[in-house]
């Protein structure tokens, strides 16, 4: 928590004017909704560009990054203030180590987040990773387990290395669609959404942004509100730029304003942010489940298990084959 000390957001001035305007407009929109604080949690596998994304969004080199350097060992929170608005971005170490979920790292993240409110989760993965494997599923599951299914209402799937030339004859958009679809599928299954809900949602939205349902607790009308937005990021310095000197993606959109807009949208959903408290970290206490029904269960056992067995014993005694002399 070294950099928790809030500083003036100076990095914003380094952005091209067009970007600055856009960002300020978005911040204004947030302030309009009486939201003067935004906390973004960045999570993902190792070496996918989490820290770089943080740096890009802040516009400063706040978190050390390096292509070959190992991960930041502990979560870091970067806080910036701009005209009464505070932006907190929490960068976390990759939670995958040696092909397994590093429970300890997850534990540290959880403890770091204790008593904080998460407005937006950036789930970071590389766009140029072609395969979605069980590891992705495990990561998604681990996040679900740690923060509850609710967090997937506030997620933005962020693809880094967005400036790639797709293989084969796929167009960029097609490739993007395919890639995000496959990852979202994993997210869906990892977050344990029900199949019929996914189908229901798939019908509703033709876009690749599939809607997320979390567990049985979401009511159907809520589902309309849940959609997983996808953001694209290109942290490379050689990123193409448009006439306004904004970094753009191969499809022409300037990505920084675009992702901040997405963040704003997610942050402004009606639901409240995820408050990380002890209870959330521990998950629902399985010991309390059905506890109130114990007297009923006991009564059932007495009348429908114990009594029949006792009757069967009596029956055995009556039926017992006595030796001929008895």
């Amino acid at each position, binding site marked *: 928590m070294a950099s928790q000390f809030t500083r003036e957001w100076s990095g914003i001035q380094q952005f091209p004017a067009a970007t600055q305007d856009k960002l300020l407009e978005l911040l204004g929109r947030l302030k309009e909704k009486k939201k003067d604080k935004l906390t973004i949690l960045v999570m993902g596998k190792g070496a996918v560009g989490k820290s770089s994304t943080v740096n890009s969004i802040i516009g400063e080199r706040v978190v050390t990054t390096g292509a070959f350097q190992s991960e930041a060992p502990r979560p870091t929170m970067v806080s910036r203030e701009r005209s009464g608005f505070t932006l907190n971005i929490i960068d976390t170490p990759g939670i995958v180590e040696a092909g*397994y979920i590093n429970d300890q790292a997850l534990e540290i993240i959880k403890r770091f987040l204790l008593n904080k409110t998460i407005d937006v989760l950036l789930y970071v993965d590389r766009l140029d990773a072609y395969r979605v494997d069980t590891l992705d599923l495990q990561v998604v599951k681990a996040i679900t387990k740690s923060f509850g299914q609710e967090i997937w209402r506030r997620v933005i799937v962020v693809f880094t290395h967005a400036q790639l030339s797709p293989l084969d004859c796929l167009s960029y958009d097609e490739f993007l669609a395919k890639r995000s679809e496959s990852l979202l599928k994993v997210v869906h299954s990892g977050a344990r959404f029900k199949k019929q809900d996914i189908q229901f949602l798939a019908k509703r939205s033709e876009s690749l942004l599939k809607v997320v349902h979390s567990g049985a607790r979401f009511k159907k009308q809520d589902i309309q509100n849940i959609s997983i937005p996808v953001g694209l990021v290109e942290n490379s310095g050689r990123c193409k730029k448009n006439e306004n000197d904004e970094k753009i993606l191969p499809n022409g959109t300037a990505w920084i304003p675009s992702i901040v807009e997405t963040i704003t949208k997610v942050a402004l959903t009606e639901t409240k942010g995820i408050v990380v408290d002890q209870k959330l970290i521990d998950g629902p206490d*399985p*010991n309390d489940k059905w*506890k109130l029904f114990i007297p009923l269960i*006991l009564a059932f056992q007495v009348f429908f298990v*114990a009594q029949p*067995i*006792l009757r069967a014993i009596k029956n055995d005694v009556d039926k017992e084959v006595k030796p001929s002399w*008895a």
Partner: protein
Amino acid sequence: MASFTAGTGQFLTLGPTRRRSNPKTSSHPKPSTTHLATPIRCQQISSQNPNTKPSKPLKVPLKTLGVAAAVSGGFWRKLFSAAANADEEKGNEWDSHGMPADIVVQLNKLSGFKKYKVSEILFLDKVKSILVGSDDSFFEMVSLRANGVYTKAQLQKELETLATSGMFEKVDLEAKTNADGTIGLTVSFTESTWEEADHFRCINVGLMAQSKGVDVEENMTEKEKVDYMRNQERDYRRRMDRARPCMLPSSVHNEILSILGQGNVSARMLQNIRDRVQKWYHDEGYACAQVVNFGNLNTNEVVCEVVEGDITRVVIQFQDKLGNVCEGNTQIGVVKRELPKQLQKGNVFNIEAGKQALRNINSLSLFSNIEVNPRPDEKNEGGIIVEIKLKELEQKSAEVSSEWSIVPGRGGRPTLASIQPGGTVSFEHRNIKGLNRSVLGSVTTSNFLNPQDDLAFKLEYVHPYLDGVSNPRNRTLRTSVFNSRKLSPVFTGGPGIDEVPPIWVDRAGVKTNITENFTRQSKFTYGIVMEEITTRDESSNISSNGQRVLPSGGISADGPPTTLSGTGIDRMVFGQANITRDNTKFVNGAIVGERNVFQLDQGLGIGSKFPFFNRHQLTMTRFIQLKEVEEAAGKPPPPVLVLHGHYGGCVGDLPSYDAFTLGGPYSVRGYNMGEIGAARNILEVAAELRIPVRNTHAYVFVEHGNDLGSSKDVKGNPTEVYRRMGHGSSYGVGAKLGLVRAEYAVDHNSGTGALFFRFGERF
């Protein structure tokens, strides 16, 4: 008119009066009786308690008790009272007959001073003029044996015995001289016969005065004689009416009728009937039953009088070490309630009931020697007194057993310093107040020098006959103070996981329960447990969380919580109940039947964190006999299919040490204890096919264990933390070798097989 008084022989003795009266009565058939007086030949059953020190801790699994009991069965000696046939003295010296060879000599022509050697004995039926084969029942009546040496007096006595046996109208003994100085004896006889009969009746005359044959006085007038006989006839009728019917089944009855249908009632026929009737009784275990008399001869109904062996008294006697009768400490009621109903006064003595009594009394383990001994009641002819002789065990006993264990020292090599003296000190006070109450205690440590390391103790008080000794309800109260230390199978790694640091679960507490026995195997136990559970790591430090090995190789102590309170020490009070229904029985050594066990631990909200829970288990096992077999000793057992299901579940507070674990020799074979997972709800299913091979059996099995997705409902999810699957199957083959099971089991999760040797039974 005949009165046939008893002799010492094994059966009928016809008095000379019968012969005398016969010519007179031949035209006027009279009911007559033959009297058989036989010494009662009952068996004595006794048992010597094989474990004179029952306090010795039985370390073999419970299953072996069945075997032990079978072994102790071998201790029953069947003592038969000496048979009546006294051997004739067999002097080697004998005298030559000194007569020309090949002449027939009358018995009274033989010299009274010589010892004759009998080369052979022949029986000649004078009526049919044929020699009777040696397999004939007459042969057993003669105590003379070929190649024996006898004096004239002995031969005459023998003849007299035969003549008075009632079997013969006339009997004669002739000697034929042989060239080598020996003599051949010919017994020529005329068998006694009576009129043909087509009815048979069997009556139990036990406990009735025996019909005493009164000789007809020579000087009676004809009228007196007729009156006398009429009286006799009437008396006999009355006697028959008073007699109880005997238990001979109709099948045997019919068999006897078919014997009667063969013609005139002859002595030999009666002998056959007697043998048949007695055989049935003895086969059924009525060892004291005797045919004592045939009555109503010369009418169309043969009446067989049987003394079945009614028990007139049950005597319980205590003996001291020297076998003298002494006053026992045990209250009589304790022994009495173990006696089967059939061994009580008023029933017919049955050897099987006696054996049952012996087994029951033996299972009290209060006595070192038990004898159940029926003997004839002198005061009440035909009655049986069942005498139970008991030698009591010492009431108090103490035992110390020690063992040295060599613990690997530094570098894995044992050193002198690493030798640890360990052992058990136990004491027992049995049979307090003579009511089989007992207090037993034991302390075990693996190191007497440092007993605080692991000291296991147990103090138990057992109070049987809670509802009184005379009340048939059989409830036993048990209270114990205990502690135990067990390795928790919850903190075990899955396949391919290196050592998971172990967690020891120490339990210490007080337990009180009441057991009601319904049958030998079915029972209902309920009680209350108060205990303190402490979880410790390898080095005996209290640990509140399991340890886990990090991918980096380090060990972190933030694994799943071990206790409910989170401190490593839990205290709780809960109710416990167990209902066992077991109607299994052995069919030629193979177990057949079904067994259901329902076990319930109900938390009462008393203890650390107010634990409130309902932890339940239901086990169902069926042993299905696949083929009907003849039940007899030495016959092969039937193939048996065993189906087994076990459900365990818990609602409410579930500390890790109470989680259900999957895997292990009594859960899913082929896995280590807890290797599959630890969960809140589990289901195990198993099937085993047992095929008899020679004296033992071989088997194939499949088993599956599943956590029903409830592993995550255990706090800290130890199943996942230690990388276990949560479900697993296995299959394998095995053979039972005595007490040991050797089996090859393949586990499905890793696909590898291994050979296991296990003690005891899986089911």
